[in-house]
């Protein structure tokens, strides 16, 4: 009897639509494209829209392991609890979607499609990101947010309304653990906020012998060290109609800060004038630091000549000493440039961006995600997730079975967050955009980009009142250079 239930349900669904229903043997044109994606059990409901000319949509979802859902409305709006129950019940199975749409009073049914429910649960609480207008040099509203991935709950960690005139850099947690995180606040009262187990410190990381404040940071897994690049960022224009701007570093050095005494390790090999060092990332065992390095050129005139290689250097977490530097991917020799290396937390993979030049892939249409097998050293573009438009910043879930990345694939400018899973062989699944209620309207109306997304394994706790007092108190810990 059980196997007849889906058929009966489908028949009932069709019967629910008054008037005649025509069948089209094509997949429905849904937004976002959730057809064939793989989702974790317990993810927020994967609501979707039909094209605007359809004023009504009726969807029947049937799980391969049982359970079903039927919704009807202006868009496919799945109830939170029922959806989570259905995906939980079908972990490792599939969800079959029967979709009908009404246009001019006529119902159309399309070919059914499936969504895969991964057997790898996404145990993290959610994602963090910065929301910012995808623009140039000025930002009126900017904020760091956290979003519960299992619902639609988004809440601000800190918004610029609290600290007017201070622009904030990306929130960086230690391997998705929000008990250790930092971000840099720019402006008159600028400093790097380091929060560890609820204790906050405001550190001025600029010293007399370094270029400026640490900008793009990465935690050492032990929590004592933070690697960061110091890079004054500028931009220039393209005159044609391919892309508006090019962002580049006028100089770039790499330092590591010891959080015990706020001293900086300034290794002359990582702070050279003729070379640009950027995008640091520690391996999960803390013994290696990956980073990117390029020959410096006269910018902006020769900005398209700057191509970064992927490098690594061994690191002694006891003393903070660096070992030998070696080139991992000599991409500049092939006319390509590597950025944002991110080792998975299980030590199995390394994901990075490749583009024609530079270290800011978001402005490069050709920028793609690549994957390196750390066991064999083999690399490949992740064609399963790449698009004709730019893929950029990315990070791993705490168990390294999921990753997220930012992409401009939707409209060419406003960046969205996509999630995908990876199996033990390195095969990735078709990515899906961060679910939203009424997603077409949501993503079409939003005037901000999702910037520097990351997973967070728990809800970020942040005392905004305390932060407000401290920002304007200007009480700072001055970093020093380790002798």
């Amino acid at each position: 009897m059980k196997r007849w239930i889906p058929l009966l349900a489908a028949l009932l669904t069709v019967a629910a639509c008054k008037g005649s229903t025509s069948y089209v043997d094509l997949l429905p044109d849904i937004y976002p494209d959730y057809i064939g994606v793989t989702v974790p059990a317990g993810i927020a409901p994967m609501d979707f829209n039909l094209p605007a000319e359809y004023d009504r949509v009726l969807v029947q979802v049937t799980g391969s392991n049982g359970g079903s859902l039927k919704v009807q409305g202006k868009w496919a709006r799945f109830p939170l609890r029922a959806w989570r129950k259905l995906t939980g019940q079908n972990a490792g199975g599939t969800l079959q979607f029967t979709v009908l749409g009404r246009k001019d009073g006529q119902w159309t049914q399309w070919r059914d499609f499936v969504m895969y429910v991964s057997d790898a649960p996404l145990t993290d609480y959610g994602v963090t990101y910065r929301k910012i207008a995808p623009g140039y040099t000025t930002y009126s509203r900017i904020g760091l947010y956290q979003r519960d991935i299992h619902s639609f709950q988004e809440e601000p960690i800190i918004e610029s309304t609290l600290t007017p005139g201070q622009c904030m850099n990306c929130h960086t947690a230690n391997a998705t653990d929000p008990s250790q995180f930092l971000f840099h606040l720019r402006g008159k009262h600028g400093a790097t906020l380091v929060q560890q187990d609820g204790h906050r410190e405001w550190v001025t990381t600029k010293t007399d012998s370094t270029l400026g404040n640490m900008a793009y940071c990465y935690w050492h897994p032990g929590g004592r060290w933070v690697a960061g690049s110091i890079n004054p960022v500028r931009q220039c224009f393209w005159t044609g109609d391919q892309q508006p701007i090019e962002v580049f570093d006028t100089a770039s050095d790499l330092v590591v800060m010891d959080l015990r005494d706020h001293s900086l390790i300034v290794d002359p090999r990582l702070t050279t004038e003729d070379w640009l060092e950027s995008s640091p990332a520690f391996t999960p065992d803390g013994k290696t630091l990956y980073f990117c390095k390029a020959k410096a050129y006269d910018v902006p005139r020769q900005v398209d000549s700057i191509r970064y290689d992927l490098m690594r250097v061994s690191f002694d977490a006891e003393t903070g000493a660096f070992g030998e530097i070696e080139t991992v991917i000599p991409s500049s020799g092939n006319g390509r440039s590597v950025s944002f290396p991110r080792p998975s937390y299980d030590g199995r993979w390394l994901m990075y961006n490749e583009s024609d030049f530079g270290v800011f892939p978001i402005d490069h249409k050709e920028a793609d995600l690549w994957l390196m097998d750390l066991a064999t050293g083999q690399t490949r573009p992740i064609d399963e997730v790449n698009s004709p438009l730019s893929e950029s910043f990315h990070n791993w879930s705490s168990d390294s079975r999921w990753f997220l990345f930012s992409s401009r694939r939707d409209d060419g400018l406003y960046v969205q967050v996509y999630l995908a899973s990876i199996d033990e062989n390195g095969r990735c699944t078709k990515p899906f955009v961060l679910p939203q209620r009424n997603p077409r309207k949501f993503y079409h109306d939003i005037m901000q980009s999702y910037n520097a997304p990351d997973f967070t394994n728990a809800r970020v706790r942040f005392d905004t009142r305390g932060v407000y007092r401290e920002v304007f108190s200007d009480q700072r810990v001055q970093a020093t250079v380790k002798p």
Partner: protein
Amino acid sequence: MDRVNKAALSTLLGVGVFAFWMGLYPQALNYHEQNQLFLFTGDYFRERMALPGGFADWLSEFLVQLFYYRWSGALVLAVLAVLLQLAVWRSAGCVDKRGSRSLYALSFLPSLLMLVHMGNMEVLVSYPVALLLSVSLCPVFARAGWHRLWLIPLGWWLAGPVIIVPILFSVLLGRKWKDVLVLVFTALVYYAGYRLLAAQYPMRDAFFGVNYTRIREMLPALQVIIPLMALGCIFGCGLPMKKTVPTILDWALFAVLVLGTALGVRQAYDRDAYEVLAYDDLIRHERYQEVIKRAEKYQPPTPVSACSVNFSLFMNGQLSARLPEFYQCGTQGLVLPSIRDNVSDLTSAELLWMMGMPNITLQYYFDSMESIENGRLSGRFLSRMADCNLVNGWYGPAEKYLDLLSHSLFYRKSALRRKEMLRDEAAVNADPVYAYVRSVRFRDDFITGYDRLDLMMAILYNQNENNFMAAEYYNVWQRLKQMEGQR
């Protein structure tokens, strides 16, 4: 004072305020209008209502969209001024149990002070709207008794902290021990409401307003003084007098207040800043001859004004000939480098658009919009950003901007017309403006920046000799560079 004289004074206030904005400072209306984009959508309403004072803010933005036309903007502000005066007078009727009132002219003080206060161009219309709502509620609060317990949070949510006016009014009027509890309750409401609705704002905003000024860090003294003066005026007008005040005294008081306002206006309105706003307003409406006429009388010695006057000279075919007659400050007075505010870049953006540099135009407009300190969108800026995206064939962002504009009142028609061009290259090429910009723009894609602007002008002219604007600007650029060198 009899009804005829009262009506005459109120009418005089309305006509005066209308003439003030229409004749003296219409550029302020333009400035307010281009720093917001009111949308007829539920989301827009909900977004405004999510903050204390949200209803006053929403209502004021609805009104400010009417500033698109000078006359309707001036009319809105005139009506607000008269309504505020009438609200003060009406509330004064509650002070004395017999409802006797006197000193009609005193009820004009808050409206006249508001005129001075709005000389600060970052003071939003939501402030007079919130004050008007609050003063209008004084009679309600006076009779509300314990109903104030729900009126206070509601009022705070709708109008913001100036709801303190009717609260204090009712407390001062009642003068009972339970009114002390009302004040304590008010403080609790302000604090709890702040934690609930405005946790991402500094706490002082709960007491001084999240949306009364475009720049929240500023707290003009008049923002605190005017509500107190309004309260004082209500009691001043409502106190019982033993003798009837002669009409002539009311007229004399009115004359004194007007004189004081004139002096206040002189102090509060920064001449140079408003002159620059006037240039921008005139250039937006393509009234270049008027820019030149104004500059012939007085021109602020700033790069922004030089840029506007030079552009107007060019549009009148007089740039080369009359260049030395006006204030010059080198090449940055011809085309400004990007400046992080919401006014300075606009003329440069317009001229670069005409010259064939849509990408820099896009940046200038984008940064100008992001420089609106309270994070509002701008109909004017968004509209030009859509143009730049259409010319570049970047239809995704263009569609986003045009869809937003299609929910507005005055940008809707043009947005819908341009939406029909989306993803239709033939339609874009058939549009005379887009076709022209496409014909004069760069044919090659290369990287450049402001420091090589003269070179870019030369390239534009060399690739299309019909681009006489690039040629003339290039020549003038070299002349200004020479003049700079000689200094």
